């Protein structure tokens, strides 16, 4: 209920900002006389994934508000929602990016949240040399070429970039790290070698569940049950859970997101089996704790980005954010990664303006500036992009549900790859 009012508030605030932007652009005070540059975002801000999308959008909006202007240009924020019928939607994402490209003031965007949405957006943006930076996309086939990419996702990084030049960047660690990190944690820390695995059969969910399974087997563990559900029509996970119990599962791994009911099966475990429940980043949010109801304790989650709270230098930014967005559910595990993405984009726009002799840069100049990002100090880490658009030293963090009231609590983080 509160969240809905908040969403309405965000929309009204967004509209108000657009309105002020329209009037402000012509007047322009102080150092904002050269015109307006818009930073766009695409997140699922109204559907089942809104518990991830709204906190991320807040981070982007906050970064733009904080900057205010860049080298004489007024900076404004404009957010798009990629939700249709309560769930993130690739076609809606494609439509959104076309709208962004149609607006000449928009020089780049931060997002999207979901890998399948990214897959629909990247080729369209690529033809327009329009730069995208995502904080949360983790599907490895978006940036890296593996033999299975074509079969699993129907596309390859090269096909996603028809003009041959990379326009897509991300700071999240790819799923090649996320699933295995969870499997390592299961075996090494939770001492669970027999694990039952389910997925929502989507690009992200199935991918992360498969990689979890592979690493688990590599470490000598066994996947005792494996199921892929159509979560739109599935209400009952009890047969799966009973099967898991009978086969001696010591933990359950769920490859899904809040929009695909990731933590509903957790609630149904009550009375069947009481073992740790592990989720990828799509479940590390407040909605998951709500959905898990009485069984919300003893859950573990991976996040493909560092926790800004662990960085003492980020404290001032976090405090300022919390003064601007006051509700508990305004901030999530991807708020500050998204904030950092927006900062990287703004920084690149600044360098592009310089490169263009102080004039409004082209989208290609901005894209180039983003690709040249070197050792950018953000709240969640120091970022440099490799030629694929991946961060050169991604971080993986582990969270666990703890305390009263239950919440996701940071356990540890570590660098992966690089």
């Amino acid at each position: 209920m509160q969240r809905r009012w908040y969403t309405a508030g965000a929309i009204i605030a967004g509209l108000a900002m657009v309105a002020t932007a329209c009037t402000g652009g012509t007047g322009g005070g102080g150092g904002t006389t050269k015109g307006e540059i818009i930073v766009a975002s695409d997140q699922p801000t109204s559907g089942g994934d809104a518990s991830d999308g709204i906190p991320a959008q807040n981070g982007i909006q906050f970064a733009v508000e904080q900057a205010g202007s860049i080298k004489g240009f007024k900076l404004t924020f404009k957010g798009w929602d990629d939700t249709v019928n309560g769930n993130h939607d690739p076609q809606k994402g494609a439509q959104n990016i076309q709208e962004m490209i149609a607006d000449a003031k928009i020089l780049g965007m931060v997002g999207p949240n979901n890998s399948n949405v990214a897959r629909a957006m990247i080729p369209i943006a690529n033809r327009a040399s329009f730069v995208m930076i995502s904080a949360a996309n983790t599907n490895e086939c978006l940036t890296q070429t593996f033999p299975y990419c074509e079969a699993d996702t129907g596309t390859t990084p090269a096909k996603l970039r028809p003009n041959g030049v990379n326009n897509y960047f991300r700071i999240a660690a790819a799923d090649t790290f996320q699933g295995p990190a969870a499997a390592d944690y299961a075996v090494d820390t939770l001492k669970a070698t027999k694990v039952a695995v389910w997925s929502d059969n989507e690009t992200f969910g199935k991918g992360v569940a498969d990689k979890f399974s592979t690493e688990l087997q590599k470490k000598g563990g066994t996947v005792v049950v494996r199921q892929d559900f159509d979560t739109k029509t599935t209400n009952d996970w009890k047969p799966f859970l009973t099967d898991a119990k009978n086969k001696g599962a010591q933990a359950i791994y769920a490859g899904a997101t809040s929009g695909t009911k990731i933590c509903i099966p957790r609630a149904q475990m009550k009375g069947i089996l009481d073992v740790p429940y592990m989720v990828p980043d799509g479940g590390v949010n407040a909605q998951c704790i709500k959905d898990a109801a009485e069984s919300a304790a003893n859950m573990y989650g991976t996040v493909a980005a560092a926790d800004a709270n662990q960085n003492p230098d980020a404290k001032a930014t976090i405090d300022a954010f919390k003064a601007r967005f006051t509700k508990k559910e305004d901030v999530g595990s991807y708020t500050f990664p998204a904030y950092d993405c927006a900062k990287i984009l703004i920084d690149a726009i600044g360098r592009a303006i310089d490169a263009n002799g102080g004039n409004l840069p082209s989208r290609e100049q901005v894209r180039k500036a983003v690709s040249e990002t070197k050792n950018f100090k953000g709240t969640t880490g120091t970022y440099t992009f490799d030629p694929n658009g991946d961060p050169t030293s991604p971080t993986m963090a582990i969270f666990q549900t703890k305390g009263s009231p239950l919440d996701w609590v940071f356990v540890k983080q570590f660098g992966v790859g690089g």
Partner: protein
Amino acid sequence: MVGSLKQARVAFVEAPIGRLVNLLVILAVLYVIFILATKILAQGPSYFLQILTYGVANGAIYALVALGYTMVYGIIELINFAHGDLFTLGGFISLFLLPIFGADASKAGTAGIILPLIAVFLVTMLICGAINVSIERVAYRPLRRAPRLAPLITAVGMSFVLEGLMFLWKGPFNLPYPNLLPTTGIAIGGATIGLKDIFVIALAAILMVVLALFVSRSTLGKAMRATAQDQDATELMGIDINRTIAATFFIGAVLAGAGGTIFGLYYNTLVFDLGFSAGLFAFTAAVFGGIGNIQGAALGGLLIGLITAMWDGYMESTWTQVIIFAILILVLVFRPTGLLGMRVPEK
């Protein structure tokens, strides 16, 4: 020997392609049954009993929703697409009523919960009934003599209206529904039959038996059956057709309201667009059993629940929906009127 081989070859080559397809289908079905049977034997009887319980409980809920589809179709040949959403609305209304009638978590699983729950059930069922009667009055009655497609489209429209209203009311998120039923169960042969499962199955069974008795014994039930057979003749007999049809919508919605409440109490979660998939399966259940046939809808719902649970429990759940509809196709090929036969108005 050579002759019979030659004959067989000729028969094979000359066989109508349809017979070959039939043979392949039968082989595929036998193969699937064989695999399922091996898995059932391998997993042991207590596991089977457990999965069976889940399947019956799940099927009982589908059956309650399917009854509403089948009754409305039986009387005015309308697929009431809004029915699945009315089921969800029942869940939403009961969620809203729970605290009002004092059914809170502190009483969960105790005797103190019984009276408030009964009150919640009754009021939810009445409200749902009233809503469905209004929908019929506004969206279907004016179109009763219109071409078939017109009320079908208004039904799709009502479905979106209801979903939209629930979206506005509670937002897009999964809603937690309090766990008020006892969480204990009875151990039978290694399986645990939860009191929750028993509650769902018993309540659904009672509602369906009451409905069946009502339709077969009461005057209004007789009027409904008469209207289903021949509206004009029924009207000539002095029966108020509008009232009878409204009563059908009312009863269907009462069952959907109860179904929504049972769903919430059983799964402890609701979401605004639940009705789309629940409605689709319930409608399938109605066709499965023979549309217009009350016993058929109950049987169809039960079967869909069982198939889902068995497939999820023993096989790959990726294929659950495929299997349900494959079985539906098979049933309809051999029995085009559904398992227990259609009962629809005569032309």
